[in-house]
């Protein structure tokens, strides 16, 4: 959706209208696919026939265990996709086909669900997921700068996927990050380099800033007051 990828026929037509390019939407953080036609050589994507899809046995077991939790198999869509993503690193077409074959739904159904939710990666993604909350409370305390610092520190390393994220529900430790689903904060801009270095070294990043260590604010306040 970026202004540059208007290679399509429609765009060319428009350009010839008086020779000026039509301005395009400047925003659109994640809208791949708008401009993609289907591949007419492919077969229609019906419910995959189990005879044609190989599912790794351990993954199949996990899928089946998840499906068994619910009264209705469709309910398992989110956890099954999450399991497939854990296994494949991202919700690849193959991962979705495997999940669809066990769940007996169409891969389209699962794709539709997966693209709705922010945590499913529909493109190959790094091993480490770093979510930076840039919503209101965090950004009031410098999250945007932190995000920029992290981006700079990662410097395009495909192994570490830094994404800005909507409110992660930890405004008390703003600005904060979620590293592989573990919360840390509050961070300084200067912590960015260290965080990335820790991740590259496969260490727990910023252990002293882990949310789990943090006491309740109310209790802490009372202790403070008692200390006074």
């Amino acid at each position, binding site marked *: 959706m970026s202004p540059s990828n208007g290679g399509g026929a429609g765009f060319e037509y428009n350009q010839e209208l008086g020779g000026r390019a039509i301005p395009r939407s400047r*925003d659109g*953080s994640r809208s791949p696919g708008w401009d993609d036609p289907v591949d007419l050589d492919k077969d229609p994507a019906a419910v995959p026939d189990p005879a044609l899809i190989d599912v790794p046995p351990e993954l199949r077991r996990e899928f089946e265990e998840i499906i068994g*939790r*619910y*009264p*209705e*198999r*469709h*309910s*398992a*869509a*989110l*956890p099954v*996709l*999450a399991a497939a993503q854990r296994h494949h690193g991202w919700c690849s077409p193959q991962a979705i086909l495997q999940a669809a074959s066990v769940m007996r739904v169409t891969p389209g159904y699962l794709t*539709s*669900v997966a693209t*709705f*939710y*922010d*945590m*499913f990666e529909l493109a190959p993604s790094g091993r480490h997921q770093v*979510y930076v909350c840039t*919503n*209101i*409370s965090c*950004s*009031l*305390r410098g999250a945007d700068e932190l995000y920029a610092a992290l981006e700079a520190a990662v410097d395009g390393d495909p192994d570490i996927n830094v994404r800005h*994220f*909507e*409110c*992660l*529900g*930890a*405004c*008390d*430790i*703003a600005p904060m990050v*979620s590293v592989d*689903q*573990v*919360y840390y904060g509050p961070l300084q801009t200067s912590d960015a380099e260290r965080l990335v270095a820790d991740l590259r070294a496969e260490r727990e990043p910023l252990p002293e800033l882990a*949310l*789990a260590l943090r*006491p*309740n*604010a*109310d*209790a*802490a*306040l009372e202790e403070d007051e008692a200390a006074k």
Partner: protein
Amino acid sequence: MSSLLLMRDIDEPGLADIAVYERRGGYKSLRKALAMTSDAVLAELDASGLRGRGGAGFPAGRKASFLPKGDMDKYLVCNADESEPGTFKDRELMQKSPHMLIEGIVIAAHAAGVNHAFIYIRGEYEEQAKILDLAIAQARANGYIGERILGSGVSLSLVLHRGAGAYICGEETGLLDSLEGKRGNPRLKPPFPAIEGLYGGPTLINNVETLATMPHIIEMGGAKYAKLGVSGSSGTKVVSVSGHVTRPGNYEIDLGIPSREIIYDLAGGPPAGRQVKLWFPGGSSAPVLTAEDLDVPYDFDSLAKAGSMLGSGAIIVVDDSTPVLDVALKLAKFYRHESCGKCTPCREGTNWTVRMLERIDGGEATPMDLDIMASVQDHIIGNCLCVLGDAMAMPIGSMIVKFRDEFEAHLQSRQLAGAI
């Protein structure tokens, strides 16, 4: 100054473990509740005057009583998809005291005659989900969940369901669709979930804090609980304070204390030398209040009278160092990103608002655009399928009204900058 219920033992080491929880008096209320009839439990909840802590503030007892009686599959869903910017109370409760929530769920299930319960927790809360998973396993092992709980006639299955990152799943019908494995699109109401909810069955949906309060209500009795707080807003409330305050965090308060007390005395007020410019009393979806409103009592009715709402009880404080336009743009972008896209006014209205705010920020707007923007907010409010559209339109609309001068000044300065 405040009675601690939910936060009483919150930092007790190992509270997430069932042994510690039981030692601190956990699951006593459940035993008490199971000894009562479900109508009696319902009556206690009703008497407590407990209003839902998720945002809408609907009386919890009444809600539970809406479920039809009879022998059918009924469901209870605990809404733990805490995604409202500024809110983080449920996270702390689940992380530190998961058994309190489980106990509340079993009590509520008993009251409403439900035997299938789900906790829908947002996908980002992985640490909390793991803790809850463990806690559920422990509770099951100790007979608090399962067939014929503690020898009573009550049976309950409890499944933890993790979301995957969508604000709209905090909306109760969006949550149901998501739990059914679909895209989290809100449903048309009526039918309300109490009549036709999860898998088409009657469904009770409650927030984590609401459910976690229930053991305390049973323990102390509904009438006694009702004496806490003020009339119309009984009980205690965990308030998440964040933004420009020195001590952000969760504070349990008696409803009805002055808001200033929360922001200044508990959370420490804005950093030295700064003034409160505006504050959201109930999460980012609440219309903003200004420094003039700091003395409004923090309860459902007083905040409504002041033109805002208590919502999920999340106070976000913005001091005078931040331009109101930045706040508005941040919010509008958030709601645009989180709009599910199902209904027209929300999908297109959030998008249009962002585009207009960007234009204002870029100095390409005129004061007339502010009027258009205000009118667009008016057109969104009340016309959407669910409340997400309103959740953007209300705060932004209130900002345009209350900070119009600042918007215009901003416009002018940007236009001047552009001219140079």
